[in-house]
């Protein structure tokens, strides 16, 4: 079936756009398609967008031998110039506010604005991490309440709140495992990780001092339990398993995997990046998991902000809880909340492996995450998982006739649908599909991940897409795939309607230009 195209627009290079058809503009802008110089090319020395009340000639006597020779060579801009610069730049970005952002494994869902509002309450945004505990009881209560939700939603014994992002949470979990074995006088050297795992898993395991060995997969895209059992030994510190996995499938044998790992004295780390598919439907703690990070910026909707900040609390089993990092919140005898830091560790946390970050984690994400959780409640969170899974299966079934779906027969997918480019004609690849989707006005799916599927395309719609929105996305995806099937060479030039055409990544890597030196050249 070829995709109908209600707009009547037929993609072809000839009609689109070369300079011969469209007039050149003196500004370089084209209507609302705006170009923007670097701030350094706009500003000038002596300008400033901040008025200061104080007299400029302040005494600096004591500092004389330390003074900076000249102020940092950074031009100033006035407020209207700054507003315009960044507003124009923002127009060159795609965001979830503009349309579906179906990056598999990344969970780009709607970011509720209530969460932004509450995070900015001065009682949260304008408090210092080292204020006396008596003056921050509400903030400690936020951490305590969120921690309680995370523990109950996962069925685990404890949670370490301080990790700064998912990969930092993985590190937290593995360091707990290392510390637990150290405490038992054991030095194990191997961590088992499936090849389909996020790159952070092996990178983290290597950092924590382990040798990484791959766990084979079954043809249906899941961990090969029998093969895993063969690999287990007294040298295996643990396994790192993503569940649901990066092929979008639930690991049916998770409990059996855990039992087998525990039987040789190892621990089970679960990469919880995909917890959004099972929240409220399944508690990882019931499956024998010892540690799992939760990306608040995925499951619990805190904004990704163009690459962070994240937040990666780690839920822990009874066995690992004593080793959790400092600081953490606890309620003391008089009913008040206290932060357990180095000074109190000997009494409250003698086995803690120590501190991972300067302060207590991502408070600004905790407030947002808690507001999201309270808004949904236990019933809404269950609905979140159901709608996310429903949406992904809808996309899978709507496209599997046209695009290879390697695990379409492995049972329902969870929150994401996996396709590959193996059915496309020679010369057409996943990259073309992704860039074609940009011209259709959509952010592409995750491409070339997981590595175990050649030319992978991982589509995660999330629960915050409407059916109509999904239908539009499916229509466009089918249209782009059909162009490839028709061997439409113009697809290789896509995108042509974006602020930039394909960028030369080879040049960027061969001759890196990482800072602006326009005022220093020549």
């Amino acid at each position, binding site marked *: 079936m070829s995709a109908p195209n209600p707009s009547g627009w037929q993609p072809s290079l000839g009609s689109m756009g070369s300079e011969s058809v469209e007039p050149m503009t003196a500004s370089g802008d084209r209507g609302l398609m705006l170009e923007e110089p670097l701030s*350094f090319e706009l*500003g000038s020395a002596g300008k400033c967008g901040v008025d200061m009340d104080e007299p400029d000639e302040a*005494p600096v006597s*004591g*500092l004389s031998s330390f003074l*900076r020779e000249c*102020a*940092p060579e*950074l*031009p100033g801009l006035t407020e209207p110039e*700054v*507003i315009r610069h960044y507003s124009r*730049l923002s127009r*060159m970005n795609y*965001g979830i506010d*503009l349309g579906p952002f179906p*990056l598999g494994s990344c969970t780009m869902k709607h970011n509720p604005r*209530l969460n*932004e509002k*509450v995070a900015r*309450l001065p009682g949260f945004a*304008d408090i*210092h*991490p*080292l204020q006396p505990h*008596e003056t921050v009881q509400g903030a400690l209560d936020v951490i305590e309440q969120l921690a309680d939700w995370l523990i109950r939603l996962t069925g685990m014994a404890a949670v370490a709140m301080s990790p*700064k992002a998912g*990969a930092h949470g993985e590190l937290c979990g593995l*360091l707990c495992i290392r510390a637990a074995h150290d405490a038992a006088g054991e030095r194990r050297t191997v961590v088992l990780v499936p090849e389909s795992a996020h790159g952070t898993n092996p*990178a983290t395991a290597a*950092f924590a001092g382990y040798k990484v060995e791959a766990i084979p997969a079954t043809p249906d895209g899941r961990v090969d339990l029998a093969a895993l059992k063969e690999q287990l030994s007294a040298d295996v510190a643990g396994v790192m398993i993503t569940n649901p996995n990066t092929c979008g499938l639930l690991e049916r044998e998770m*409990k059996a995997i855990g039992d087998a790992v525990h039987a040789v004295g190892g621990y089970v780390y679960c990469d919880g990046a995909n917890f959004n598919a099972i929240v*409220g439907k399944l*508690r990882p703690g019931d499956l024998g998991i010892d540690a799992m990070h939760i990306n608040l910026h995925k499951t619990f909707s805190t904004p*990704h*902000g*163009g*690459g*962070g900040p994240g937040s990666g609390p780690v839920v822990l089993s009874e066995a690992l809880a004593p080793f959790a990092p400092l600081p953490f919140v606890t309620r003391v005898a008089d009913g008040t909340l206290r932060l357990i830091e180095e000074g109190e560790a000997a009494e409250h946390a003698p086995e803690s492996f*120590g501190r991972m*970050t300067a302060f207590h984690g991502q408070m*600004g994400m905790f407030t947002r995450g*808690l507001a999201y959780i*309270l808004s949904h*409640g236990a019933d*809404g*969170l*269950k*609905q979140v998982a159901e709608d996310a899974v429903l949406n992904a299966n809808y996309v899978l079934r709507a496209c599997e006739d046209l695009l290879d779906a390697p695990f379409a027969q492995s049972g*329902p997918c969870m929150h994401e649908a996996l396709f590959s480019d193996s059915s496309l004609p020679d010369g057409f690849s996943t990259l073309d599909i992704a860039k074609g989707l940009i011209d259709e006005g959509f*952010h592409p799916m995750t491409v070339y*991940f997981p590595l175990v599927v050649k030319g992978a395309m991982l589509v995660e719609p999330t629960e915050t897409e409407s059916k109509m929105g999904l239908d539009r996305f499916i229509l466009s995806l089918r249209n782009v795939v059909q162009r490839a099937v028709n061997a439409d060479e113009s697809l290789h030039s896509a995108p042509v309607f974006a*602020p930039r*055409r*394909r*960028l*030369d990544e080879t040049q960027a890597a061969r001759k890196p*230009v*990482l*800072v602006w030196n326009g005022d220093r050249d020549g």
Partner: protein
Amino acid sequence: MRYLPLTDADRAEMLALIGAGSIDELFCDISPEFRLPGPIEGLPLHASEMAVERHMSRLAAKNLSAGQAPFFLGAGAYRHHIPATVDHLIQRGEFLTAYTPYQPEIAQGTLQVLFEFQTQVARLFGTDIANASMYDGSTACWEAIQMAGRITKRDRVVLSDGLHAHYVSVIEAMARFTADTIDTRSPALEAEPDTSKLVGSIDEETSCVVVQYPDILGRIPDLRAIAEAVHAQGALLIAVVTEPVALGLIEAPGNLGADIVVGEGQSLGVGLQFGGPYLGLFGCRQKFVRQMPGRICGQTVDAAGKRGFVLTLSTREQHIRREKATSNICTNSGLCALAFSIHMSLLGGEGLARLARINHARAQEMVRRLTAIAGVSCLNDVYFNEVTLVLPKPARDVLQALARRDVLGGVSLSRLYPGTSGLENAMLVTATETVSEEDIEAFASALEGVLA
């Protein structure tokens, strides 16, 4: 539920297309014994926006925020005025709700900001290059130590006694697992950092020396002299800046010989936020670029020859190099980097210098007033906006008493260095441009009252 667009009719229609009789069929891979039958018991159900806002506002009201009281805390997190422009711009949905710029054609906004940010950080630090951010100053510091180890192929790390106690804790916790040797000690209450002792502990096994600038006690170490001694042993100097506003006034570490400069960028644009999210800054010499951790944005051209930006040198990173990556970091502090960059663009270099002079003047005024109190002395001869005060009583008790009088007075050294004797009566106090004369007077009279 206000965030879920599917209607029951949609769900039924979609299930029919999928060929599933019910939603439960899509969860059939969960073994029935583990499948939760309904909403988890004992947890509240969904709530209206108004109800959630009320709940969160009540919690917020239980905190004494910095704006409600004379406020003098620092110790690695500083309160500066953030122009309204910053918060407006970072809430534009195209920035706030974008992902890591993996599709550069539709992420030029984020990418150009990162390129500008890297340039700003490099110029502030006096380094050749900078990356696109780390989690915070402490993790940036640990990553710098790891990087120095890769470059020098040595594993002994010397920390100056002026490095933030929590940064030292992070380093010690991580080093326990990497088997790096950490040479560290708690600070002594001396007016100047002991450069000769630090220099004396560098040997031919030393990978790097880590020096905070200004240091935890507010003192300013002689980086140039330290750099010479470090380089003479073939080691690298890592400078740590926890208060970047200081660099408006004092010389950039890169210009004094530091090889890697890391810092906490929270002071500009980000706010206190009870400790996070913050912004790890990371700059270094050009020749070390391929050993750098984290994301890096670079300039290039597109197929039509227009200037554009991409994430580059990705083969260092975990998503490609996996267990051989330079770091496991993935998500960093993108939106905080945007906030920093906007604030820096508003200030410009000269504005930052002026802001720094005002901070220093405020601190001088504060020191003058507080040291007029009987029994209170200032440790520092030289400082930027933060000093160590020595009191006649244990500082932690004094700070609690001040808090009861609604004065947020500082950070006690005994909280940062529990168990280290001789520091009990000392506390760090900071004055930024947000501190008024009235605040200083209120602080002084409350302190007089508490000490009386």
